């Protein structure tokens, strides 16, 4: 049945900080705004976030980080997204992001950068306004690159299907 297109958002807690109250509150708010929120839980590596974003084919990623490790983690997330040809996903961040880091974060292509006190409605509106319109129109942006070699090899190298 052709439902209206749902916005799917990955909410992730990268790095080692376990303070996920904020992430959960935002997940809940996005849900109440009619979105489908995939919540990954805490202690996500860049690889886990990118892999989850690919498998879930999300429209947006929202990383919540309070630990101060953002400049170590964010570039890796963006790099791995690019390496996997993911170029139609809105990447946002929130949490404790010092003002002096914001230009560098934005230069990475990470948007939003919601600090403490941001109203939920602002985040919801931001997501709605900034997800890639191609995706919402259900057009298929060409996958810019085939699966990375490592992946392809792992798949190709699999033993023949057994009867298990």
């Amino acid at each position: 049945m052709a439902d209206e297109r749902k916005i799917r958002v990955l909410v992730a807690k990268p790095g080692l900080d376990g303070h996920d109250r904020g992430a959960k509150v935002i997940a809940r708010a996005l849900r109440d705004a009619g979105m489908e929120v995939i919540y990954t839980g805490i202690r996500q590596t860049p690889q886990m976030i990118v892999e989850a974003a690919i498998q879930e084919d999300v429209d947006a990623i929202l990383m919540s980080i309070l630990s101060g490790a953002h400049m170590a983690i964010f570039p890796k997330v963006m790099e791995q997204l690019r390496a996997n040809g993911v170029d139609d996903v809105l990447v946002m961040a929130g949490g404790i992001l010092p003002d002096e880091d914001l230009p560098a974060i934005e230069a990475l292509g990470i948007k939003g950068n919601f600090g403490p006190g941001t109203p939920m409605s602002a985040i919801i509106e931001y997501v709605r306004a900034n997800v890639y319109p191609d995706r919402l129109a259900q057009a298929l942006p060409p996958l810019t690159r085939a699966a990375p070699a490592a992946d392809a090899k792992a798949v190709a190298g699999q033993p023949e299907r057994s009867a298990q």
Partner: protein
Amino acid sequence: MANSDLVARLLGGDRRALARVVTLIENGAPETRAILAELHAHGGRAHIVGFTGSPGAGKSTLVTQLARELRRRNLRLAVVAVDPTSPFTGGAILGDRIRMQELAGDPNVFIRSMASRGNLGGLAAATRDVVRALDAAGFDLVIIETVGAGQAEVEIVRAAQTVVVVTVPGMGDDIQAIKAGILEIADIFVVNKADRPGADQTVAELRMLLSLDAQRNERAWRVPILKTSAATGEGVAELADKLAAHLASLKETGQLASRSGRQARSEMLALLHQALLERIAATISADEWNRLIDEVVEREKDPYTAAAELARRVGLAGAAPAEA
């Protein structure tokens, strides 16, 4: 449109293409039908296993442990985890990945969360078609984890070849278990959280109930009752063995084919139903509806007569198909 390209990439193991196809299927995009036709031709090899049971029974954690065991056996697997959509906002929080973190990063495991999007019965309307995509993508097993199900969410029997019903100790007395529904669909019972007190009693009660089921006793497959602890990993290897044994039994007895036949039939009926509804919507105007509704409300016509009239309008109902 790059659809055939997408399917080719999916068949070649491209995870992004697979993920995108799943999105198209979920959204009922117009190009989906051609994609599904192609996928269907490439499928039929995966063992499709359903996990159902009440919320909090430990389905996600158990599936994670099982997945690790299957990976040790060098099998590739996909997991479709269905969580409920809020009937009030249409949104959903899909949290099954939280418990599946140990599987992250393994390219031979593909996990997809699905919101139920208003479908009752424990699955989303598109789940079977998503399974079709995962099957075509070449996974050895496709595991469907239903919405935490109560007593009658049994749609999983129309989607899976092997149904695992997960229960936990202390979920209620044995009257709960003899009510109709979820207990009748199990090919394998799992008493999870078996490290908790009362597990043996739950197993004993289930065993007694099964022994009273005359229909089951005639079948070749004896429904096993396994004790697992997803926390410690106890019983998980045995569960993997039983899954394989059940599939083997289905094949031996010819039941795999008859199950597939039943599933195909129910799927076609559902699609036919859908097509009829679309035909009705396209043929009968709102005015016509309202006129008939008024006549029924005013008791000039009874609902059966009014429905028969509508049926004739869409070319149904006993009489020779009316002119279109």
